[in-house]
């Protein structure tokens, strides 16, 4: 079901809305957000220079560093009294990034997530179990309000206490699961360990996964654990922009529709900052055009994707962004070669002999970088030959995909760390 008529507007009409809202946002930000006003002045651009959508490229970028430099409220466009909610990123390095919402922002957010939930197949009849951590993280409350708005029944079970999660799923007949891809796998693992087969004993038919990138191999793995008939869609967002709800996949699973009446996407070359032509892969930059509290202009997401303007079979006209191929800051440079953890994941998941959990360790030995991939053994064997064959096949496939030699370490099942929120599978031990 298509939630809003806007999602099917003609390109012309969408661009008209975008331009109108962009002009208004730039003007407001220039007046009210001093650090951005300074950036614009330094770049020699005034709000009245924005006459067409093309003029967007004249505006300076905003980065996560700008948010940190202006911690906590420096980039906000409204006085604190008008905020009704504050969220923050985890801030693993230094200060967290703080975001604030007016009532209007929360309404926009709810609208955006309602659309994404419908794209993923949700209806008012669903029992939606939200297995994202509730708290300062935007994921849980974002999905919560959207799914509640479309009338589904919310089970706000959060993360942790995984056995109880399975009990809720069974007893409340949960039909829709919200989780990170890795936690979805973990929950299935726990269900099995207590004698519950998710494909037979549970009623989950929809999985809305997000907050980590979803590779096709991971999607297949989720199908294996939860059932082939489960509709697994990914959705995208980040707290700086709003939270989840920026974009989401429809049932055709061919890219995530961006809520273009609220966000304008661009793809840039992340080294030069130059805007790339439609269809090329690069860093996604998003401009918020209907935000009140924190209207970021040309925010560099560091996510690598491509925009697809061709019409989608679902009938929505909103541009699609390809499922992420990585984040520019997740990218590892190993012996001069660019490596995305998602490439390694694809290789691992292609082996039935291995479990879906893994750990990537990068170290420096002498002057050389050393890449080790730890994987869990998923076969029962009494043969060294077989064990060596598995390790060697993984190694040679990694060499083909990455162009690098990696050491492959087989470990016992259930020994690598499991994650409930965003998985942290890369350990880079090289001194920076």
């Amino acid at each position: 079901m298509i939630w809003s008529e806007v999602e099917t507007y003609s390109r012309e009409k969408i661009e008209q809305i975008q331009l109108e809202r962009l002009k208004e946002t730039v003007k407001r930000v220039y007046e009210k957000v001093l650090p951005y006003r300074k950036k614009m002045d330094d770049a020699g651009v005034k709000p009245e220079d924005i006459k067409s959508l093309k003029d967007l490229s004249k505006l300076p970028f905003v980065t996560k560093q700008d948010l940190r430099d202006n911690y906590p409220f420096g980039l906000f466009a409204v006085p604190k009294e008008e905020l009704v909610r504050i969220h923050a990123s985890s801030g693993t390095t230094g200060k967290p990034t703080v975001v604030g919402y007016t009532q209007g922002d929360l309404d926009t957010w709810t609208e955006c997530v309602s659309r994404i939930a419908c794209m993923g197949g949700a209806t008012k009849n669903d029992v939606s179990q939200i297995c994202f951590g509730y708290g300062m993280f935007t994921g849980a409350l974002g999905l919560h309000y959207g799914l509640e708005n479309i009338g589904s029944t919310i089970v706000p079970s959060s993360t942790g206490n995984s056995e109880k999660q399975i009990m809720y799923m069974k007893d409340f007949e949960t039909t829709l699961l919200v989780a990170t891809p890795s936690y979805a796998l973990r929950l299935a693992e726990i269900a099995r360990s207590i004698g519950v087969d998710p494909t037979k004993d549970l009623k989950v038919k929809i999985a809305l996964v997000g907050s980590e990138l979803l590779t096709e191999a991971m999607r297949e793995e989720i199908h294996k654990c939860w059932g082939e008939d489960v509709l697994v869609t990914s959705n995208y967002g980040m707290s700086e922009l709003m939270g989840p709800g920026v974009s989401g996949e429809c049932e055709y699973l061919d890219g995530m529709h961006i809520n273009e009446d609220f966000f304008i996407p661009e793809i840039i070359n992340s080294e030069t900052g130059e805007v790339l032509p439609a269809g090329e892969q690069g860093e996604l930059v998003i401009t918020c055009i209907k935000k009140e509290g924190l209207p970021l202009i040309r925010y560099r997401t560091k996510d690598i994707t491509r925009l697809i303007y061709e019409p989608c079979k679902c009938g929505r006209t909103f541009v699609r962004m390809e499922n992420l191929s990585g984040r520019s800051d997740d990218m590892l440079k190993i012996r001069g070669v660019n490596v995305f953890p998602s490439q390694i994941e694809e290789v691992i998941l292609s082996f039935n002999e291995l479990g879906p959990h893994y750990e990537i360790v990068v170290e420096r030995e002498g002057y050389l970088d050393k890449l080790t991939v730890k994987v869990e053994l998923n076969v029962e064997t009494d043969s060294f030959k077989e064990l060596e064959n598995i390790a060697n096949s993984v190694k040679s496939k990694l060499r083909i995909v990455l162009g690098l030699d990696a050491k492959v370490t087989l470990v016992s099942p259930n020994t690598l760390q499991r994650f409930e929120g965003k998985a942290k599978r890369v350990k880079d031990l090289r001194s920076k």
Partner: protein
Amino acid sequence: MTCKQLSVFIENRKGTLSKVLNVLSKSGVSILSMSLADTTEYGLLRLIVNDPDTGKKELSNAGYSSLVSNVLVVKIPHVAGSLQELLEKVEKEDINIEYMYGLSIENDDAYVVFKPSDAEKTSELFEKDGIVTLTPEDLLKMKL
């Protein structure tokens, strides 16, 4: 006659072996013989135990990768050259020995655990030649 052997995949680091043994001892599985072969990163612990199926079940529950497979426990006279004689018989039939280890030594006889490429064929061969292979029941009666 073949007997069941329990093999466990273990990582080559401190404490893993004792954790595996702890699982077995808690479930009352007693070890009659063992062999531990290792590489730099992992090893295979092969065990002849009184109750391989319980061992396997408990190890799986504890998250270890283990396997029950068929091996031969062969009785040979405890004199020089008897093992070699046995191997020659096997080689003549083009059977490969993947690995073997000792089980116990009595006054006159010794027992070795054999993992041939074809357990059934080897078992038949031994039977024909009057070589004694132990049954699972024999194993249970062994006083070590």
